[in-house]
């Protein structure tokens, strides 16, 4: 399979803090790739750099053959990368429907947008019942579903997800992972950041382990799940 996304020796600084210290990674079309690592390892920074919210100091990012290293976040969305950000970051003062409409901000096909809103409602029936409700009044799980639905509204080819299971009850965590698989089966490539390494490795094709801004391990997800180092550090045994 062809490489869809390629990060090549990326370095990111926050002032004097060298948060990402030379990351290279690849996501191929159709895959689920997991990125795991401890708090502060640089997972969110990596995703935000891909989206253009943060500029790398060195290195390059290519997506479907385009160099996107210096593109604006808006152009990157337009090329087909969306993110479900850490902490959901839905627009809490706006309605559920308005949040979904904003997800389709770069699109002009009104009929397609309407159709996709219906598709999101089909996937998440609870959002449909609450479409006129202010998003801030949704439960945590519903907010996560809205964040996912909103990202899908851009019709991404590559979906970046930053800890989608954070703060959810175990049953909802299972549901979210089921949804991730469904989205992937429907043809969207996924780069998944997770603290829940067990789940993340169980659904991924491949995975990367990030430690203080560097990639410590990489490989097929099942091999990493069997790796004693990974088991000790991330799988609680």
């Amino acid at each position: 399979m062809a490489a869809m996304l390629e990060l090549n020796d990326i370095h990111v600084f926050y002032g004097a803090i060298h948060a990402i210290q030379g990351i290279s990674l690849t996501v191929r079309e159709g895959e689920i790739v997991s990125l795991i690592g401890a708090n502060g390892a640089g997972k969110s920074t990596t995703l935000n750099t891909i989206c253009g919210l943060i500029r790398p100091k060195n290195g390059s990012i290519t997506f479907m053959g385009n160099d996107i290293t210096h593109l604006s976040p808006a152009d990157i969305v337009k090329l087909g990368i969306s993110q479900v950000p850490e902490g959901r970051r839905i627009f809490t003062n706006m309605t559920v429907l308005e949040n979904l409409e904003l997800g389709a901000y770069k699109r002009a096909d009104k009929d397609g947008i309407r159709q996709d809103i219906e598709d999101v409602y089909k996937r998440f029936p609870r959002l449909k019942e609450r479409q006129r409700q202010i998003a801030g009044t949704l439960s945590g799980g519903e907010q996560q579903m809205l964040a996912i639905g909103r990202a899908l509204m851009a019709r991404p080819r590559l979906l970046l997800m930053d800890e989608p299971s954070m703060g959810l009850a175990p049953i909802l965590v299972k549901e979210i992972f089921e949804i991730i698989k469904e989205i992937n089966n429907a043809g969207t490539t996924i780069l998944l950041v997770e603290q829940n390494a067990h789940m993340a490795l169980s659904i991924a094709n491949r995975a990367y382990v990030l430690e203080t801004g560097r990639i410590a391990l990489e490989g097929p997800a099942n091999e990493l799940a069997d790796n004693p180092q990974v088991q000790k550090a991330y799988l609680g045994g």
Partner: protein
Amino acid sequence: MAVLLQQLLNGISLGSIYALLALGYTMVYGIINLINFAHGDVYMIGAYIGFIATALLGLGFIPALLLSMAISALLGMAIEKVAYRPLRNSSRIALLITAIGMSLLLEYTTMYIAGPDTRSFPTVLTNRQYSFMSGQVNISSMQLYILVISIMLMILLQFIVQRTKIGKAMRAVSMDKDAAQLMGINVDTTISATFAIGSALAGAAGILVGIYYNSIDPLMGITPGLKAFIAAVFGGIGSIPGAMVGGLLLGMIETLVSGYLNSNYRDAVAFVILIIILLIKPSGLLGKNTGEKV
């Protein structure tokens, strides 16, 4: 009773001017957390454009109003781009000082070009008086114009903010800039549009006041600017309905005070309100509690 009604009518006209101006303060604050002290001067420029359009170009009222709004919008965008955008990641105090500098620049540039003297508008509208309650309550056609135009502009604004794509982008950027960028929203363009809309409203207020009081001068923006800022804080800075309510209330309170107490207290009242609001409910009547304010 008739006196009270008369005062309220006058208060609503004055208040809708404050509301138009307060909207610009509150929208800009909502999106970049800046009290744009140059806003009152955009209103002054709007009045001067109105003067040029009517007295020198001989335009009628509506074309002059539209021209003044358009040029004010461009001015607002230029101010943002030149003075505020380069400082977007600087400290708030740097921004605030820049805004004050921009205000002085506009005032004294106008003074240099147009001279410090007060100028009077030509009569572009026939001013009729309409009387009610056997002549005890009067409303002038000019007051009606102010009222109707302000209300129309506020409805238009609500429509833009609530229903259009750029309005949704403005709300999204106000709430969370990074999340807005992840939607593909261009933050610079959106902030620019916010300045354009707020400044167009200020320009409209400027020409309305110019025609109503029939006099303009380069420093005319200072006091109404301050009052409108107070109105915005009163209503809840960052809140659009708050700015409308705050402006109308402030206008009515001021006219009631000058009608029933003493017109010398009129200006003091606004500041008393500011102090009380800051002490009791800093988030304002319709604002959310969000801690620190400038």
